[in-house]
């Protein structure tokens, strides 16, 4: 019987398998092994974690394929990698390398300031960032099979992640309570296709899995995002910029599973050593803020 690959169900389905899990940024095969050992449900292979991208300045691009292959060989869990916004050739390269999920990410320097990648052209699924419902639905219209709220990557400050998650759910709840005749105008205001807006109105959530990203540094941060409606978390700099990455990574994995259990959260929050020092998101100049990238 006919076999079909790269279908919407398969793209969205892999994100469903990641739910309730932690996706960790790693820059070497050794870090990938630590992440897998700690219970990460996937790793994000990149050359520098966002905190170091901020520090280094310059142009941030897709990672070196050799580095990505090294990480793929080190673990059995899914491996994700980042392409620049709009850089569909980086995405073609990542697909050819056999990456499991592509993050079209504002953390890298955008390659196109008007258009994102047409993600329907690919068999590999994409995750994209958003700050609100309109942005999420524009990405889904372009073919994103998973969404993450952006937060402010590389800061260790959770405030932007909270802002974006609350904004997303606020938009969804407003839409859900709207009479049907108002949805046409809502679609115009959200700058998103009517059919997707109507679907959110009907089901009361995004049509794809939604994780939280950007600023998670502690088990409590991770559980906070879960209680605010995330289905899992990305942790970038928060693990490998801390004192004891292996212990902190394990603690964040447990915190995401038991996000509603304060006793377990208290227990896993102990003995972690120092968290990443971080940067207050408020202290960033507008040109240093990554979340504003994406259209």
């Amino acid at each position, binding site marked *: *019987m*006919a*076999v*079909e*690959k*790269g*279908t919407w*169900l*398969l793209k969205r*389905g*892999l994100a*469903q*398998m*990641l*739910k*309730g*899990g932690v996706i960790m940024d790693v820059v070497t095969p050794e870090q990938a092994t630590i992440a*897998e050992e*700690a*219970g*990460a*449900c*996937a790793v994000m292979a990149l050359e520098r974690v966002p905190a170091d991208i901020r520090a280094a300045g310059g142009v941030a691009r897709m990672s070196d394929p050799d580095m990505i292959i090294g990480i793929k060989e080190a673990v*059995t*869990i*899914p491996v994700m990698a980042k392409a620049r916004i709009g850089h569909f050739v980086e995405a073609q390269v990542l*697909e050819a390398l*056999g*990456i*499991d*999920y592509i993050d079209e990410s504002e953390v890298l320097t955008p390659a196109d300031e008007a258009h994102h990648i047409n993600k329907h052209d690919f*068999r*590999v*699924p994409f995750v994209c960032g958003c700050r609100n419902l309109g942005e999420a639905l524009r990405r889904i219209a372009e073919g994103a099979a998973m969404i993450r709220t952006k937060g402010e990557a590389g800061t260790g400050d959770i405030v932007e992640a909270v802002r974006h998650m609350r904004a997303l759910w606020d938009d969804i709840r407003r839409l859900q309570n709207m009479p049907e005749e108002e949805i046409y105008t809502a679609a115009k205001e959200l700058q998103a296709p009517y059919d997707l807006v109507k679907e959110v109105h009907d089901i009361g959530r995004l049509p794809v899995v939604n994780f939280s990203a950007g600023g998670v540094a502690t088990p409590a941060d991770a559980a906070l995002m879960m209680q605010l409606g995330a289905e899992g978390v990305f942790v970038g700099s928060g693990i490998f910029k801390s004192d004891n990455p292996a212990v902190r990574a394990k603690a964040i*994995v*447990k915190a*995401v*599973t*038991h996000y509603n*259990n304060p006793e377990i959260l208290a227990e896993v929050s102990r003995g972690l050593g120092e968290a990443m020092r971080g940067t207050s998101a408020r202290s960033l100049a507008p040109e240093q803020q990554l979340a504003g990238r994406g259209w």
Partner: protein
Amino acid sequence: MTTNGTQPPRIGVLALQGDFAEHAASLRACGAEPVEVRLPADLAGLDGLIIPGGESTTIARLLDAYGLLEPLQALTRSGLPTWGTCAGAIILAKRAPGLDRPNLAAMDIGVQRNAFGSQKDSFETDLAVAALNGRPYRAIFIRAPIIDEVGPRTEIVAQLEDGSVVAARQGHLLATSFHPELTGDDRFHRYFLQIVRESAHPAPGGK
């Protein structure tokens, strides 16, 4: 089962990581009562258990971390009807090479993890499943394992065209490489609930 006036069966869904919410929704649609299982205390009074899709390495670690491994090994061996989908099948299998943590090792099958390659080789296809009457079953394989070894007491429930075993049953235990919880076709959930009814297991331990 709700129609004959008896209590709906209480089916635990292991909720450590993965798509447990989809299984819970499918169970509810079939008239069963899903119970999310994260700690040993959640195992009390279950009529059956589903181990969902997700990452088997993550699930195996969390099983161990909160003392679920031993009670679940005992329950699955003593007859609690249990169904594992994809990662869940890996958690149920006696032989799962490459899985670096102990699993339930309840079902006499061997699995090859991630047998088809990376995500771009994930696929969907129609399966002929004799145990489900009627039309073919649309099966979703996501970085899926295959069942490459089947014990003498294990029956094959579904195979790919090349003969790879992708669903098997051993009495009260069911394993599928694919994800019936993602399709909206609830015939596999009804099949499992039939196994639960046939087993009519007296409310198992966990007190």
